[in-house]
């Protein structure tokens, strides 16, 4: 693996940087190498967390120091590997009510991008987004392939609380907040579905490698689905 850099992330983790762009190939590579490192079962190494462009490796500094560990990681990453495919066979539909009280930043995104609000919605919905990783919060899907015309920078002062189910845009990324959280993304809509439910199996209805599609719904439909709670059946397509 060429051109990787390794840096400390404090004294209990390190960060391996593979690149600086969101791409399916890069994401596949990182997930594959994460498995290589996990399989190596190095002494002192804990969780290996793959993200879009980097890998965070958690470790116990009492068992192995930064210098020694980075050498071992570098050696493992020199090995060539076959890449895992993103699972192209499952599409999970997420109903979203766009704008209004559910999407307070929709007009800002429209202004920033020079599109009408309707154009923002039609470009955001009706398109497949591969799930690159889950992170930030349980069930939070990091999605790829946002239409570049919709890129909008994050808030410079993150909101203290974002309502669960909020759909947002942050820079070149899009995703959904599955539970209430602080956050800096621009909010354009909200889903009535509970995306993380520790009492349900599985707790989250998708995994890294699936694809998500947002389906616009009205406020009336939003309320109806919300009332159904866990009785609501998500529309999931397999083999597409």
């Amino acid at each position, binding site marked *: 693996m060429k051109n990787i850099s390794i840096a400390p992330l404090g*004294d209990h983790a390190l960060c391996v940087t593979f690149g600086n762009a969101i791409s399916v190939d890069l994401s596949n590579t990182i997930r594959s190498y994460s498995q290589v490192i996990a399989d190596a079962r190095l002494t002192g190494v804990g969780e290996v967390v793959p993200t879009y*462009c*980097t*890998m*965070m490796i958690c470790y116990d500094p009492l068992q192995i120091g*930064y210098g020694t560990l980075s050498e071992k990681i570098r050696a493992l990453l020199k090995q060539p590997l076959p890449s895992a495919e993103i699972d192209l066979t499952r599409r999970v539909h997420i109903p979203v009510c766009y704008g209004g009280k559910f999407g307070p930043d929709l007009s800002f995104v429209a202004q920033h991008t020079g599109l009408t609000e309707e154009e923002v919605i039609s470009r955001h919905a009706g398109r497949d987004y591969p799930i690159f990783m889950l*992170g*930030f919060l349980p069930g939070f899907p990091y999605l790829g392939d946002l239409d570049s015309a919709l890129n909008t920078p994050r808030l410079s002062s993150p909101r203290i609380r974002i309502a669960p189910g909020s759909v947002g845009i942050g820079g070149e*990324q899009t995703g959904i907040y599955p539970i209430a959280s602080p956050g800096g993304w621009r909010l354009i809509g909200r889903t009535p579905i509970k995306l993380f439910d*520790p009492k349900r199996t599985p707790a989250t209805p998708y995994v890294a490698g699936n694809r998500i599609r947002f389906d616009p719904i009205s406020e009336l439909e939003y309320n109806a689905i919300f009332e159904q709670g866990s009785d609501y059946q998500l529309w999931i397509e397999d083999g597409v």
Partner: protein
Amino acid sequence: MTTIQDFGRSGYLSSGITSSGAMDTHSLALANLLVGNPMDAAGLEFCLFGPTVAFDSDSCVSVTGGFSPKLNGAPVKSYTTLNVSTGDVLEVGYAQSGVYGYLAVSGSFAIEAVLGSMSTNTRCGIGGVDGNRLSDGMDIALRQEEHRECKAIIPPVEETGPLYIRVILGPQTDRFTKRGLDAFLGEEYTVAVQSDRMGIRLEGAAIETINGTDIISDGTALGAIQVPGNGQPIILMADRQTTGGYAKLGVIASIDIPRLAQAKPGRKIRFVSISVEDAQKNYADYCNAMKRFASEF
């Protein structure tokens, strides 16, 4: 807010489930040692104001942090083993200093671990008692009913003046100007009131960037210092998000996390850069010292 916390939940960051755990693991460790528990056993954590608990059996407890507890109305010492009996009422009250306090019970609580830990993650609704903060009238079963030999620890002296916190710089220092880095290491920052278990928000000289602080989201470590566009640093703590999209200037050295957790709003902070090697040596020294200390109990 009072929750059950141990040293946290590890291995689930890839699912977006953060570590949670005690904000000040050092004070929890001391509370546990005083009642004969392993240092990382689950205890009660409270913030600025502690709970009042009633016992319906013999038990052995301790309170650490800057609190002045009362047993049946009479003041008792924190940092001391307290033997209690049926009908006794322990009132923790307001913090006299610091922010977080701990109540440990001999044998800890008879609750199930969730994903390997008893720590409460209120955002996810897992751990502790039904993933919630503790509320009035709740009963929590204990594993042991016993009295123990009383021990005492000299309480830590409250630090006055600015708190010097050690930082390992990186990994996105290249996003900041020299002036920005100099401000971070040279100026005083003040702990803001919006600080909580997710993060300590600081106010002070804006940290200047070359071209903004948006990055492609990557992993967050405990103590990571994120700088959003307004230049005001946020230090990610126990209930932090597992990934984040603001550039990280550095990560607090592990041994300084407990000290930072105890900094009240209004407290002044100054940052000092250290190497990862020095930080790891300091951490090893701390662990060895705690092991030796524990063996005296």
